[in-house]
């Protein structure tokens, strides 16, 4: 999917830009989060990245109230009809499904940040301007840009153009993708990807489909495909206690990672953290994990370190717990 702005220039639809990212690739990086994702992982901490297209997020706690403000209604071309308030005049939702002009004027006029827009169209020059301002930090640390999401390869055409532009500027690139994407779209970004970051949640396709909504055949095929090109890869597993942290699953993934050979520079076991719940609320969505509570740190940490050690021993792969260890041979 490729977006364009009113001038017809190609755009990425981006919902967050995060400077000083240090855990998604080597060095100090700027991470761009692209909208849209084909997976529905229940532990997702970026629900605002799932839907394709801009979305309005609502923070009722930041609303000043209709009696004091009402700027959103005043600026709405439809007289505020999509904007919902409770009995006290506090914003509850903006209904984009019906009647909305999709003009996003209310997000501009809200002074308190109660109406946010998730997903802004940005051109390559606009993005490069932001990246250039941190160039010194990249050069000092071996950092650069990381394209992430959502699923960045939903917007594969733009990603390919942006990566090429970054390389033209000598900016190091990482792509973080779940790889449930047609292989030819993956191929489009590989020529300008320095490190590929991806993840395996379940080795078994049926379990994968049950939890994330899709099977893992395409994902595993793509991972193997990328590995065969020789591009350095970081593979991850989000280790969610009680969901996928059983030895059977983890050892099967370990076996798979081993089969990828030398392209894998690090295999990271990422601990589950309950994050993003407030963002689900802004989208009027329930947290998919419900009231799931992970065990105490002392419990999961022991298991994570045990898995790391056993995976190292059994498969001889470069496993690390967390993303705090430097990628061997990368960064400064």
């Amino acid at each position: 999917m490729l977006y364009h702005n009113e001038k017809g220039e190609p755009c990425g639809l981006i919902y967050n830009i995060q400077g000083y990212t240090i855990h998604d690739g080597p060095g100090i990086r700027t991470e761009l989060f692209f909208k849209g994702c084909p997976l529905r992982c229940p532990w997702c901490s970026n629900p605002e990245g799932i839907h394709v297209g801009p979305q309005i997020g609502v923070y009722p706690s930041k609303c000043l109230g209709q009696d004091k403000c009402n700027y959103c209604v005043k600026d709405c071309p439809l007289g505020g009809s999509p904007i919902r308030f409770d009995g006290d005049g506090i914003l509850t939702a903006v209904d984009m499904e019906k009647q909305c002009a999709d003009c996003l004027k209310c997000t501009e006029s809200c002074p308190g940040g109660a109406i946010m827009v998730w997903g802004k169209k940005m051109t390559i020059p606009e993005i490069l301007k932001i990246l250039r301002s941190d160039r010194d930090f990249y050069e000092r640390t071996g950092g650069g840009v990381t394209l992430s999401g959502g699923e960045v390869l939903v917007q594969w055409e733009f990603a390919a153009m942006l990566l090429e532009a970054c390389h033209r500027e000598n900016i190091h690139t990482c792509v973080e993708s779940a790889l449930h994407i047609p292989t030819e779209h993956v191929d489009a970004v590989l020529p300008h990807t320095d490190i590929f970051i991806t993840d395996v949640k379940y080795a078994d396709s049926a379990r994968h489909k049950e939890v994330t909504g899709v099977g893992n055949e395409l994902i595993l095929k793509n991972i193997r495909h990328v590995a065969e090109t020789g591009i350095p890869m970081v593979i991850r597993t989000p280790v969610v206690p009680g969901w996928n942290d059983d030895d059977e699953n983890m050892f099967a993934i370990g076996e798979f990672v081993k089969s990828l050979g030398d392209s894998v520079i690090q295999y990271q076991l990422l601990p589950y953290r309950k994050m993003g719940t407030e963002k689900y609320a802004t989208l009027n969505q329930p947290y998919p994990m419900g009231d799931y509570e992970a065990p105490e740190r002392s419990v999961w940490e022991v298991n994570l370190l045990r898995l790391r050690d056993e995976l190292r021993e059994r498969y001889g792969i470069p496993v690390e717990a967390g993303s705090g260890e430097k990628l061997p041979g990368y960064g400064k």
Partner: protein
Amino acid sequence: MKTLTNAENLKNKDVYAHADEVDVTPLAIEPYDKEWGVGLSGNTPEPSPFPRINNILKVTARTTNGFVSPERAELVTEAYKAHPGESQEVKCAYGIANVLENTPLYIYDDELIVGGLGCDKKGAPVHPEFGLNWVCNEMRDGLMDYSEQRTHDYFSYTPETQRRLEALEDFWKNRCVEDYANSLLTEEQLKGSHAGKGVFFADAYIHCGAGHLGLDYDRLLGMGFGGIRKEIEENLAKLDLSDPKDLERHDFLRAAKIANAGAIRHIQRYAELLAAKAAETADPVRKGELEQMAANCAWVAENPPRTFWEAIQLVHLANCIILIECNGHSISYGRFDQYMYPYYKHDIETGVSTREKMQELIENFYIKIWDLNKLRDHILIKTFGNGGIGGPALTLGGLKPDGRDGTNELTFMCLDANAHVRVPNPWLAVRLHSDTPWELKVKTANVIRLGTGEPKIFNDDVTIPSMMSSDIPLEEARDYQVVGCVEPDVSGKTYGWHDAGHMNMAKVLELAINNGRCFHCNAECPRWSKCGALGRRLGPQTGDLRTMTSFDQVLESYDKQMKYWCDQMVSVLNAVDIAHQNVRPLPYLSTVMYGCVEKGVDVTKGGTKYNFIGPQGIGIGTTGDGLSTIKQLVFEEKKVTGAELIQAAEDNWVGHEPLYALVNSDKVHHYGNDDDYADDLTKFAMDTYCKHIERRPNAHGGFFQPGCYSVTVNVAHGVKQWASIEGRTAFEPVSDCMGAVHTHCCSHDIKGPTAICKSVTKMDHARATNGTLLNWKFSPSALAGKTGRDNFIALMDEYVHRKGMHSQFSVTSQETLIAAQKHPEDYRDLLVRVAGYSAYFVELNKDLQDDIIGRTSLSFD
């Protein structure tokens, strides 16, 4: 880097515990990349590898509360009364000598170094020469000991202590610095000061010494007190008393000789007491230690030290005596790793001592400094909470005078010592530059990541040129130490009056857009009858935003208003300076500073080489965002009129909620986001302050130096100021140091550390010759692992490369701070960086705790 050879390393391997973990020079007891955890702060029992140090720590109070000790005040008074006809200098000398010769001395179990303030640990002597009335008043009003108005930094005292001090009160009336200084001040000077509306504060040294210096360590260690005595006597013999200038010198040198004799006698008394204690000690090991300590004191009372142990003993005693003479804070320890290195090397090479033994001495020395205390009034401690003796800075690393890097083993050992004792003294400063060794950066990062708030980092690459702009030659500029919280200083050659006052730039902007009148001007103001009721305004009429037609008029008005208030502040500071010279010369200090004995001039009168006064600009973020708000919303977007904006602040934003939300939102350009729009205006705000301060003559023969940091006084200035247009509500702190704005609504900097680094380094740090400071606050997760460590080092490197002068770091999670506020009993040892220094978080008052919690936390996991 000066290090031992590989052969020497191998030879010495067995003297330290973890030799096999170290594979690179330089050597210390710990490997250079030893990790102590991230964000653990002080919460570890027995942090030191030395049982002795852990034993001492067990009886070391983690508090700055103390008690009032009346002996010093009585002994000084006695001497003044015994010498009524003498000159002020000689009288002062008899005062300090009488204290040194007669004050009680203390020796503690396990300790290897002696020295204190003539009272038990955590006791604070009283210095009536600067002012006694306030001490007695606070006792009478119940403001000295614990009360609801004073919940930390409180001082207990017995009824007898109160009676003994009150008995001296009459004598010191009109004989002290405070009374003399007040007699010099006029209504115009006072109306904007601490005694008025708090546009500026200039009262820091009105009832205490100016402090903020380091002695001349080369002089002290090279000559010893006996050598100094000889120099005084030789200069006395050279005088021609028919020359009136020499008559003045004669007075000074007599005073210096009396003070010097007092210092020698003081140390000899320790030697005698230690010998007596050794004689009655049965344990042969301790007996031997006490005998050695007695021998050390007996030797260094007059002679230059020969060993590391003698040198560290002399350094501690010589500094304690400065504090006994004058209670000014930030008496600093200079470039400790440089001047101590010859002793270290000598002791290792000759086998006199071992690396472990010297490490233990350094750790004992740190705790000795923490045991010292200083009496402060109940107003000051609200913003300078948990300061203790205050400002004992110790500088490590950096360039040597010849331009080579000076890092050595002691640099590492002194940093390890902080992690081993985890008390917030001394205040460590590591000097970085473009060629700082990687190992030192790792060591520094690891100590910072521990989260005690130590050390701060200073940048040679901007500080050295900055000092040279104050006429300091290259070699001396390269040899700078950091004094107290922030200030670069040539140790022993500078009487810098650093941190003498501060100007609230945000208040100046308020007056500049309201035609000289304060916001919220009404009959509730204590000055109303002298000011508003008569139709007057606090400041000159330089313009009114309601009627201004261009943004340039705002800038012009700010400039004029700033000039007026700088004039007032400078005049008050000069008056206090004159009071110090006339009432409280410092003969002992003069003997250990460079040049005073040679010139025959007391240090307060300009006897040493460099003589500055350094007042700070406060609230650059608040001022910059204020200017940015006006430019964008009033003159460019015209979303609001000047009248509406002022009215909103006058109404403390009540009824103006949308505007309050807007000015606090990212829809307005704000400082701290690498956005030139706001950063340029912030730079203008700071440069305007510097322009009106720099190079103005001061009363002790030098000139003024602007600084740009608040330490914690941004809280105190905020309490004096009504709401401001960038989104502050009434009485909130103004922005801290070089940092961005964080209001009760939200933080104005939202782009993360790379943007902060770039915004802050767009300011001209070199121009702030009295120093700058940026406080960083990281969540532990941002610094965890090698990834966190090395990217943090890169961030520091980039700050250095971009000519930021000085940074300090807090590494504590928001959750920990909030939990500590709720359950202080569980967090007694939690050290945090305040600004300029570290403090026990639970000892701070709630306003300051909230200010620290509110600083933008850089977290990204």
